């Protein structure tokens, strides 16, 4: 294969992979992400939003709902029961030490992001 043909084939292949991915990102509806289960059942709305605000101060790059949604649904393989899916992600976060301290709360990274997303969507 000559070099021009290689590059043309590579570009086609990349586009073939990239376009559906970009489409899927654009299709992520942040509103489908549930609020963090434990926090939303244990705390009042204001407290939950305060956690979300604290997270966003800590991670200013995550101010866009779609950014957070993308992080949260990154390896969503079509999970239908998002609540169970996220609870399992949260449990795994704690198992793997993927935790963060936000406003003093020792949280799973996933639920901290959920709290942040909830805050952005419920201003």
């Amino acid at each position, binding site marked *: 294969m000559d070099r021009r043909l290689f590059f043309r084939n590579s570009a086609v292949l990349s586009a073939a992979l990239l376009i559906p991915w970009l489409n899927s990102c654009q299709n992520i509806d942040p509103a489908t992400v549930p609020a963090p289960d*434990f*926090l939303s*059942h*244990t*705390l009042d709305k204001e407290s939950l939003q305060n956690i979300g605000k604290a997270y966003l101060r800590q991670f200013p790059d995550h101010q866009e709902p779609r950014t957070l949604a993308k992080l949260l649904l990154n390896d969503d393989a079509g999970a239908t029961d998002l609540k169970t899916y996220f*609870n399992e992600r*949260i*449990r795994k*976060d*704690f*198992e793997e*030490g993927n*935790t963060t*301290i936000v*406003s*003093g*709360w*020792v*949280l*799973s990274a996933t639920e901290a992001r959920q709290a942040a997303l909830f805050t952005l969507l419920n201003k």
Partner: protein
Amino acid sequence: MHIDARKLENNSIIEGDICIIGAGAAGISMALQFAGSPLKVILLEGGGFEYEDRLQDLYAGKATGQPYFPLRSIRLHYFGGTTGHWAGFCAPFDEIDFEKRDWVPLSGWPVSRQDLDPYYEKAQPILELGPYNYDPAFWMKQDPAMIPLPFTTGKVRNKIWQFSPPTRFGKKYKDAIVGTKNIHLYTYANVTDIKANASVNHIEEVTIKNFYGKQHTVKARKFVLATCSVQNARLLLASNSQAPKGLGNDNEVVGRHFMEHLEMKAGELWFSKPDALHMYMWAFNTTKARAELAIAPELQREHKILNGTSSMIPLEAARNMKPFMEIWEDENGEGMAKKMRTDTEERADGGPAEFKPFNAFQLFMRIEQSPNPNSRISLDTEKDELGVPRGKLHWELTELEKKSIRKIHEIIGTEAGKWGAARVHLFDYLHDEKDTSWPSFTGGGWHHMGTTRMGTDPKTSVVDANCKVHGIDNLFVAGSSCFATAGAPNPTLTLVALSLRLADHLKA
């Protein structure tokens, strides 16, 4: 037998085999070990059998550095000592508490937990505790309502405390001491000076005084200081007519490494469903044992943190509780003793404990203080009414304490997250891991330790593995002033165990 030193002819000479200075938990426990032996034991108590303000005033002193409670009221100056107001919490030190830990300066005892185990067992009945068994499984069998939280990885474990009634040594053991022929208890016998021989390697006598103008001399083959961490150090430093730096203080270690247990709120533990946490609750005069959350030794090593435990108080109640620094601020020792007893005893009804379920609990930390030579007892220029320079405290903490409190609760939070039904929230003062300041409610548990610490090196310790003062062949120290590190639990069980071990050593 009992002799009131006020009634002796002035300048009496009292002689015995062993002279124990101080009749608190350590002194009384030791003295009773010699009951019925051929040895004549002199037990000196500076106070009488009841609280007296003028005597309590001998303990007054200044405190600098980290704000601390009034020195005048932190120890009680009468027969029975500070058991007159303790709360009865007992647990043995962990094995790691005795080990050298490279992240804890000057850690490592010259004795091990195994060396103390037989004495812990002997100490249990003296403090009116249950069997020497601190295995959570044992207590769970005694009370099926004791259900542990589902920390399954072993990183957070349940450390058991047992509860003394609490034993007021002054009441419980007065008859035993007074009724024993070979124990000669002298009340109103404040030791004001310890005199050594010319080489300052052997104690010949001590001087005792009281407010009735009487001064007497006590001679013995062996002397044991058992007057608590503050007063043990003070007396050694003040006995400086032959050794200008004080007895046993050639290397200026006496008084240093004053340690407390930091006791303060650290966070909250929130549950998705209410729980009574029976295993972790305490009702005065009812609860025999309860658990506090401890961190596994391997995690302490991994994260290089101090040892400490977190107890739980229903948040609803905890939010209305004032911190110890605000409650225990009274210089009046009797007032403080009454306040502390009232806080616990008035809640008792002796019936079975019933704990209500809550979904949020305050996490209350008790953590050791790292040995810090700058945290110390020294002498003031001001003297007390008997002419002894007053003790003064400079209390100083290090960054390791705060770092450890934060990490302990982060670990608890991570482990709680694994079972999905709980989360930890740290208090404000722990949010910023770079912030080394302490909040105003930072306080201790009135556990005073380390001022005559044990060790093999006289450059960093005052007493050896047998609690004998380095360089002086017949002077010993009993009590928590000998602790090389503070451990996680309240000191009383360990100081009684150590004192019993010293008694055995002196008998040999």
